[in-house]
């Protein structure tokens, strides 16, 4: 640099501003292009992800609908909860409820499948930031702990049992990690309570939605 004399216009504020503005515009254009060309693929991947976790908590035999298409949003003490519903012959057979626990390091997101009688069909962790090797045993890849909830309900398991063994409940904690399983157990229990409280709305809303669809442009 510096061998060539710099033209004087390049020293002006206007040139600098135009340069910066020009680059910003160019960057915006490139990003828009990138977004357009990848948006569909990303949406597809995301749907695949959701579908994959949904099919793990709701057996395929229970439904003949596309789970992603039948989603209703209910109010859980002021927090909106989007529930996926499995239907067969237009009758709800199971629901998948997203639940959250407050783990050792941040929110643990889970999804649980519940049949019409409030029995757990399956629970899976969607995302978490728990300590690798300790708290991550909640993942089905690392341990079969999460399968221990299958078949349980508020009816066949007394309320006081919904805790880790250290707290007098029936679920194992992991050696070195109690907060993580405690959070998961609590989240699942709350999910079941939510299902019990909203059962009528969850199961009957089919008709409402079908009726609503006729007026709705979607």
């Amino acid at each position: 640099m510096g061998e060539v004399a710099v033209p004087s216009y390049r020293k002006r504020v206007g040139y600098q501003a135009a340069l910066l503005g020009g680059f910003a515009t160019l960057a915006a254009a490139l990003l828009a292009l990138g977004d357009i060309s990848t948006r569909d693929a990303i949406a597809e991947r995301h749907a695949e992800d959701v579908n994959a976790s949904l099919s793990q908590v709701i057996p395929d035999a229970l439904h003949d609908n596309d789970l992603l298409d039948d989603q209703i949003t209910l109010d859980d003490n002021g927090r909106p909860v989007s529930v996926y519903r499995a239907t067969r012959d237009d009758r709800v057979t199971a629901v998948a409820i997203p639940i959250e626990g407050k783990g050792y390091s941040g929110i643990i997101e889970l999804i649980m499948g519940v049949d019409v009688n409030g029995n757990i069909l399956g629970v899976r962790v969607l995302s978490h930031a728990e300590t690798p090797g300790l708290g991550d045993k909640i993942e089905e890849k690392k341990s079969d702990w999460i399968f221990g909830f299958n078949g349980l309900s508020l009816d066949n398991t007394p309320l006081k049992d919904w805790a880790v063994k250290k707290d007098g409940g029936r679920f194992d904690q992991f050696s070195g990690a109690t907060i993580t399983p405690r959070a998961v157990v609590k989240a699942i229990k709350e999910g079941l309570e939510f299902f019990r409280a909203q059962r009528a709305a969850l199961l009957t809303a089919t008709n409402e939605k079908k009726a609503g669809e006729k007026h709705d442009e979607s």
Partner: protein
Amino acid sequence: MSLSYRRIGRDGLWDNNVVLAQLLALCPLLAVTGTATNGLGMGLATLAVMVASGFSVSLLRGLITPEVRIPVFVLIIATIVTLVDMMMNAWVHDLHKVLGLFIPLIVTNCAILGRAESFASRNQITPSVYDGLMMGLGFTFALVALGAVRELLGSGTLFANAALLLGDAFAFLQLTIIPDYKGFLLMILPPGGFLALGFLLAGKRIIDARLQKRRALAETAEPEIDAGAAATSGA
């Protein structure tokens, strides 16, 4: 300015390695190197960004004035990183799930801005791209080395999940070196990263010292043939 390609290659891969010599980019380095595969994925993503930013900065260096160069460089790098992020999300989704959190952080990787500022903005396109490639390769090498050490000591495997990154053809890379290994959690956690990095840096120093000694010996023995090596050791 007329740096030889051999010099650029040596600088990027070893002498002036982003991690081992400059000690830059430690945040992504320590964050993702729990396994060798993650290190490789992060390294390749950074490599792509370095090459692309070297190319664009060098291409536009005549236009950019010194007064606004930093914001323009950051803008260019941020754009490239965002594009890489979107493409990985769309086409190598499984890896993106693992690395997704760290990809946007490539923007803040000081090594990329550093190369844009100190190399690409002063050199022709080809050497700049080559410099980006070599620096990126050096960074990838450091990431993979650190990831391999931590994975081996931490979980007893090597290149676990490599098939997710490179396709099923590379499944043979996935090795379980120590079967029934109980795991050594410390190495997977951040302190293990610092420890392993420390040993890696010490290792480089030892190798460099050996090389220098050997070179000095060779020079005293046959001073007439090794004029080139003397110039390098002075650099």
